[in-house]
C-alpha cells in the first residue's frame, strides 16, 4: 500500500515536473490562453480545463497501456512521437488559431463532412480543449520524453500499473496549466465585472488566444519543420 502511494506521488510529481519544464512552454502558453479565454463563462472555463486534463490523461493512459504491456517498444515509440508529432504541432496550432480568429470557417466550400468535424472541434470550447490535450500530450520534447519514458514507464512497469500511474501523470501535467488558466480567467473576470467591461475583455481574450496560437504555431514550424537553429 505504501509503495503504491509512493508510486502515485512520484507519478503525479513527474507530471508536474514535465509541465513546468521549459521545453513544453509553447504548448503550455497556448493551453493557458485557450482555457482562460472563456473569461465571462466560469462553467465553460471549468469544463474546458477538465476536458483538457481528460485529453492529456487519455493520451498518456493509452500510451502507458501499450508500453507497459509491451505492445509498443519504448525507444521506437519515443523517437517516433518526438520526431513526427512535433512536426504536426506547428500546422495544427496555426490552423486552430485561424479558426479562433475566424479567418477560416468550417463551412468552407468543397469540404466533406469528415473534414469539417476537426475544424469544428478546434473552434468549439471544451471538445477543442480535449483534442488540444491529446495533441499536446503526444508532442513529446526531450525533457518530457525523458520524464515519461525514462521515469514514469519504468515506475509503472515496476508497480505493474499500466492505468493508474499514467493517469496520475496525465493529471499532473495538466495541473500547473489549469492553475494558471483559472487564475488568469477568474482574475480577468473579476476585473472585467468591476469595470463593467466583460464583453470587451471576452472579445479581446478570443483574439489574443488566436494570435498566440498562430505565433506559437509559426515558432513550432521554424523549430520542428524548417529546423532553424
Amino acid at each position, binding site marked *: 500500500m505504501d509503495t503504491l502511494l509512493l508510486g502515485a506521488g512520484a507519478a503525479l510529481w513527474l507530471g508536474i515536473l514535465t509541465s513546468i519544464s521549459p521545453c513544453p512552454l509553447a504548448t503550455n502558453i497556448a493551453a493557458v490562453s485557450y482555457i482562460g479565454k472563456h473569461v465571462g463563462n466560469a462553467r465553460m472555463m471549468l469544463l474546458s480545463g477538465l476536458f483538457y486534463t481528460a485529453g492529456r490523461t487519455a493520451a498518456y493512459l493509452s500510451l502507458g497501456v501499450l508500453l507497459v504491456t509491451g505492445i509498443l517498444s519504448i525507444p521506437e515509440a519515443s523517437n517516433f512521437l518526438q520526431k513526427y508529432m512535433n512536426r504536426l504541432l506547428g500546422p495544427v496550432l496555426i490552423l486552430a488559431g485561424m479558426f479562433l480568429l475566424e479567418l477560416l470557417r468550417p463551412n468552407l466550400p468543397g469540404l466533406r463532412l469528415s473534414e469539417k468535424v476537426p475544424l469544428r472541434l478546434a473552434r468549439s470550447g471544451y471538445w477543442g480543449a480535449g483534442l488540444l490535450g491529446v495533441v499536446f500530450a503526444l508532442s513529446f520534447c526531450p525533457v518530457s520524453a525523458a520524464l515519461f519514458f525514462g*521515469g514514469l514507464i519504468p515506475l509503472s512497469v515496476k508497480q505493474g500499473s499500466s492505468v493508474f500511474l499514467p493517469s496520475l501523470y496525465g493529471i499532473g501535467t495538466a495541473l500547473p496549466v489549469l492553475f494558471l488558466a483559472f487564475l488568469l480567467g477568474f482574475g480577468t473576470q473579476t476585473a472585467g465585472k468591476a469595470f463593467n467591461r466583460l464583453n470587451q475583455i471576452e472579445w479581446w481574450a478570443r483574439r489574443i488566444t488566436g494570435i498566440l496560437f498562430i505565433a506559437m504555431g509559426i515558432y513550432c514550424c521554424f523549430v520542428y519543420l524548417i529546423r532553424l537553429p
Partner: protein
Amino acid sequence: MKAKRIAVIALLVFVVGSLAYSFGREFRGAGLSDPGTRKKENPPGAAGQRPDRVVVYYFRATARCPSCITIENYTREAVESGFSDALRDGRLQWQVVNVEEPGNGHFIRDYRLYAQSVVVVEIRDGRQTRWKNLDQVWNLLGDRAAFIGYVQKEVGAYLKGD
C-alpha cells in the same frame, strides 16, 4: 477584407511550404541511405583506434532544447576535465552523434534510447563488451557539480574496468 484574405493565404502558404520543406528534406535524407554516401561512425575495430578503449557518446536529435545543450556541455566538461590523459592517448573517446542523421538510427535500437542520452561503452579487443546509459543525467541537470561528479565516476569505473 482584402487584408484578411492576404493573411489567410500567407498563413496557409507558410503551413504548406513548411510541411513540403520538411518532407523534402526527409526524402533527400532517405536518399543518402545508399551505403556509399552514408555517414558512418567509426566501427569498434577501425584502423588507428586502440582495440581497448572506452567511448562516451552523447546522443542528440536535430532539434535542440536548452536542457539538451546543458547535458552535452556538462558531459564534455566532465570528460575533458577529468580524463585529459586518457583522451590524449586514445583510451577514451568522446563522440556526439545525431541519431536522426542517415545511418545513425541503429543507435536507438542498440542502446534503447528514448531521449537525448549519455552512454558509456567499453570496447575490448575491438569488440563492444558492455555499455551503460547514464540515465541520471536528467535528474542532475540542476546541479552542475553533482552532474560532473556522476559522469566522472561512471566513466572512471569503465576506464578502470570495474
